[in-house]
């Protein structure tokens, strides 16, 4: 086993390449995945390697090609559908919610939809409100879907395989600010677990619970807190649905304090769900109320200073943790 220096983007591409090589039922389709090389350059070069049948450029018709992915999955293929950003997935919401998530149930267990949908999420690049929202928490509301959020290189590399093996629709949310994240990665890579959260750092004083694009922010906050003598557990949820409640509760029962960091909006968010579960199941283990650090409740602004102010920042996490630990 050798370690290679790579990026989040290249790690996802490698995972796609491996999937396409190993299983002829796998194909990738979406807007500009082929000739353009993918709007975030994730699929760059795959067209040359696998040809236009399997790296399929689609017209701008999110509802049609996501629906077609569902149909192809029903008929035995293993489609990977790329939607450029979560904002555009809303044009396909009908297919995702009314078909992908429900067919198994409505057919009394006859129809599985082994479909993988990948999309970019999140803010931080001054792309304003129609390209910057974090809506994975919404998708995590929907029974029948599995929602995964790779935040590290090993997860970017290793989550696709179990996602493709999963008989149900899996939505993969890739945070736009992570694509250039670089580091060393073992090759050949191991498939990673998409059932359990990962403890990215261990501490005794507080549980910082997060996922995806805010993992680096949260880890940075944990380092700052450590310098002040506050040792944090950092939990990377990885899978937002089904939620690994046990890992969250285990940690909180040890640390007795919790802050949830979520780039979604606070009201009705995943952070609300997590805080509620902690109160439901670990209320008497808590020494302080659970705090949440979320995005300000505004459509994301373009101007950098406003975007920064809207997003969860390291300092916000540190401040919340200090308040909770008291």
């Amino acid at each position, binding site marked *: 086993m050798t370690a290679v220096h790579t990026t989040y983007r290249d790690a996802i591409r490698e995972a796609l390449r491996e999937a396409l090589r190993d299983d002829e039922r796998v194909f990738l389709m979406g807007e500009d995945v082929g000739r353009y*090389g993918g709007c975030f350059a994730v699929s760059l070069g795959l067209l040359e390697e696998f040809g236009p049948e399997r790296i399929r450029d689609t017209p701008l018709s999110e509802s049609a090609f996501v629906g077609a992915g569902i149909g192809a999955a029903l008929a035995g293929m293993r489609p990977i559908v790329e939607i450029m950003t979560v904002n555009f997935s809303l044009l396909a919401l009908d297919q995702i919610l009314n078909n992908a998530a429900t067919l198994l149930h409505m057919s009394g267990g006859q129809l599985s939809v082994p479909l993988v949908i990948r999309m970019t999420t999140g803010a931080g690049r001054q792309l304003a409100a129609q390209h910057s929202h974090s809506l994975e928490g919404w998708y995590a509301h929907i029974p029948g879907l599995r929602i995964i959020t790779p935040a590290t290189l090993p997860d970017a590399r290793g989550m696709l395989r179990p996602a493709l093996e999963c008989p149900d629709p899996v939505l993969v949310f890739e945070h736009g600010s992570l694509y250039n994240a670089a580091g060393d990665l073992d090759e050949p890579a191991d498939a990673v677990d998409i059932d359990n959260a990962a403890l990215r750092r261990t501490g005794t004083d507080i549980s910082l619970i997060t996922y995806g694009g805010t993992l680096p922010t949260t880890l940075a906050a944990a380092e700052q807190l450590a310098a002040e003598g506050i040792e944090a557990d950092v939990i990377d949820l990885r899978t937002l649905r089904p939620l690994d409640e046990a890992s969250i509760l285990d940690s909180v029962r040890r640390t007795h304090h919790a802050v949830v960091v979520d780039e979604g909006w606070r009201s009705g968010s995943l952070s609300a769900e997590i805080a509620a579960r902690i109160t439901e199941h670990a209320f008497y283990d808590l020494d302080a109320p659970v705090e949440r650090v979320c995005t300000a*409740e505004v459509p994301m602004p*373009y101007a950098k200073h406003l975007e920064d102010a809207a997003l969860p920042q390291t300092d916000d996490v540190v401040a919340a943790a200090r308040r909770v630990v008291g």
Partner: protein
Amino acid sequence: MSRRGSPATSAKAKHRTELLRQMLRIRRFEERCVELYSTAEIRGFMHLYIGEEAVAAGLMQALSPDDAVVSTYREHGHALARGVPMVSVMAEMFGRVTGCSRGRGGSMHLFDVSRRFYGGNAIVGGGLPIAVGLALADAMRGRPQVTACLFGDGAVAEGEFHECLNLAALWRLPVLFCCENNLYAMGTALARAQAETDLALRASSYGMPSWAVDGMDAEAVAAAGHRAVETMRGSPGPCFLELRTYRFRAHSMYDAERYRDKAEVEHWKQYDPIDRLTARMRDDGELTDETLTALGSEMDTELDGAVSEAQAGALEPVEDLTRFVYTEQP
């Protein structure tokens, strides 16, 4: 000086000079934006209109100030030709509170409701239903206005395109559907996305007058625009213009342009709408070097002013971040 008397006096010469002026303004504005982007004073997604100026310049001439315009994310040219002040567009690019969207929108979301300029929409096809609604309101109130809706060839693939053409035709609404067919949707060539690439033909299947227009010719666009608007004011119902044009630059600042040949781009540059009109006006003795120089310096003045005013503009105070989520009651 021309043999036919002093230039720029005939109505035709005036009309042409105005078209040229608008196209030059748009091009210079965007060339400056490229410089500002490279120094990181402007950020986010930025889509240039260079090559397509004839469409905005021609079309806006055919509209009255009461008409409405719905635009896309490639809308600097639309906004400027519509009369949105250059300084407020530039300030928006800088993310200033003095920008036309208070710095919240950026390049892709320019709005100026006082000029009935309704954006600035970064969802492909997203503006079409809004245009139908604006036209519906005008029709219901018995107002004579039309709504011009600009969108790219990529939008034709979206379901909303078909839903909106159908609705506008069914309800006989005054929407001027203006498809800027520049042959590409990001890296996807029209022929790779569409089973039938004659877009005017497809629109005509909804029972609306539809024309394909040389979108590299500002005069042709203006004439087609006038004709369509007259048709709509005379008898209610939508019209469709397919404006055949080309973008000389990449899709956005992030595009490496792997999907098309340099030779193809060079070929299209022969039809540069600014060069073409300039040549025509010179041939007809309507344009002198002096006029051209004067236009150039007029533009430099306007641009320099816009940039320095934008740079000097204030930022929205962070305390006001949560404003404009709900309507502020007085």
